[in-house]
């Protein structure tokens, strides 16, 4: 036990910042023009949640389920695991999240977003909007170029953030919590990785978890 205490988080970082950044460049190049399609689907998700009806919410969940499954296979398994053997143990969690989303999406009735724009819905929508439109811009903003943009549906961070947004506002409560756990764990791990890589964007996944937590714990309005 004392030996394990002598390790620092840095000791577990297996790759350099340039290798991590190039992962996304190669991923986008290999899948082009899928990043554009993914952005369009992300915009459709945002619209569906802005004007929610049960069928649209369910379609959004199915869309996210497909994205979790695709990212698990195309990014984590094919691209990330060869440079980080720990990712092999993360892939089943992504598959589990995909099954959760699919299960909820295919289940008829019961799902809803808060009516009006209370804080949980505002935070949830903000997270989804950030994940779809702003997160891809962090790459050029941090000097990595647009070619290395992390796009929802193709890269894990924006996907986890958008799912946190969905989990932050969805009702009933237990379903929101069930959806929140795995993306929150991924965002915490990603924040640590980015911190160890000295990335100035390390706080972004952390903030996403914090906002989703605030939204989830925010007291629900009770009818008088």
């Amino acid at each position, binding site marked *: 036990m004392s*030996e394990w205490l*002598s390790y620092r988080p840095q000791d577990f970082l*297996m*790759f*350099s910042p340039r*290798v991590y950044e190039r992962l996304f460049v190669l991923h986008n190049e290999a899948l082009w023009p899928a990043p554009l399609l993914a952005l369009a689907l992300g915009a459709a998700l945002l619209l569906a949640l802005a004007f929610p009806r049960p069928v649209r919410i369910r379609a959004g969940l199915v869309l996210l389920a497909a994205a979790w499954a695709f990212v698990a296979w195309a990014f984590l398994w094919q691209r990330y695991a060869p440079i*980080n053997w720990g990712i092999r143990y993360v892939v089943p969690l992504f598959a589990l999240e995909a099954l959760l989303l699919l299960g909820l999406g295919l289940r008829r009735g019961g799902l809803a977003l808060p009516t009006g724009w209370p804080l949980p819905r505002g935070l949830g929508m903000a997270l989804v909007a950030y994940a779809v439109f702003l997160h891809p811009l962090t790459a050029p903003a941090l000097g990595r170029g647009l070619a290395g943009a992390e796009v929802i549906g193709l890269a894990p961070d924006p996907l986890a953030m958008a799912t946190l947004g969905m989990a932050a506002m969805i009702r009933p409560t237990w379903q929101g919590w069930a959806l929140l756990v795995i993306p929150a764990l991924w965002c915490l791990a990603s924040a640590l990785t980015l911190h160890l890589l000295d990335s100035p964007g390390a706080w972004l996944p952390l903030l996403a978890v914090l906002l989703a937590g605030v939204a989830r714990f925010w007291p629900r309005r009770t009818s008088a």
Partner: protein
Amino acid sequence: MLPEPRRLTRRRLLGGLAALAAASALPPLGTRAAHAEIASRQLPAGNLRLPLVGLGSWITFNVGDDPQLLEACTAVMRAFFEGGGRLIDSSPMYGSSQATIGHALAELDAVGPVYAADKVWTSNPDEGPGQIEASRRHWGVPRFELLQVHNLVAWEAHLETLLAMREAGEVRHVGITTSHGRRHEAIERIMREAPIDFVQLTYNIVDREAERRLLPLARERGIGVIANRPFQQKRLIRRLEDKPLPDWVAETGANNWAQFILKFIVSHPDVTCAIPATTRVDHVRENLAAAREPLPDAALRRRMADYVATL
């Protein structure tokens, strides 16, 4: 106006032929001089001489299948071999590093010159032989020169496997590794009891615990020593880079902090070689140059360590 073409005279022709003959007798470009100058040390067992500076692969060679970065790593290995380097160290724990090394060895046709050092790293002893074979295929070598038990994971069973492989001629040398100064008591016990050829441990100008017991024991038992983490994974360089080198730095033969640190390590008579890792061609050349004379004697080494301690 165009310059007048030079006329071919008998004298010029003979001079040119003589220069051509002299050039063809030399080793290929880039392998000259450096080979002759880089210092090497005999393994205490006496059956091997290795250059004092090798090449590590933790983080630096873990580049996946990125063609651009694979090419950069190949350039590093090319410079390493051209500079007279031989020992390259890796592990199945290092992601795609083994495959990167294999890619570069094939590109450079360098399976011959490399002293291939790898490790076995699995808590399940039954998986050891399969893992070693997978590693060998990644490297593309007929056999490893050195196999080590990585960080003493399941070391008793793995060491038994490795010693049997050595007996069967499937590997030339066998060793154990640790890093960050961990488990030195267990390392000492194994060095006393097991017929190993190498021990790999952390040793540098600020991590000097090994000097007390392990380095003298290595000399006594005829065990080679590979020093890992020479720069504490860049941390030591970052700590020192803003500080002035001592006025007497010329006595050490170092031109910068990296060479100062490396010269301290490889000048210890019980260290066989150090294995700095790098992604840069200029750094690998600089590291190899640290293995050239002059190398500090015991008094100068003390002075170097005392100076760094004051910073």
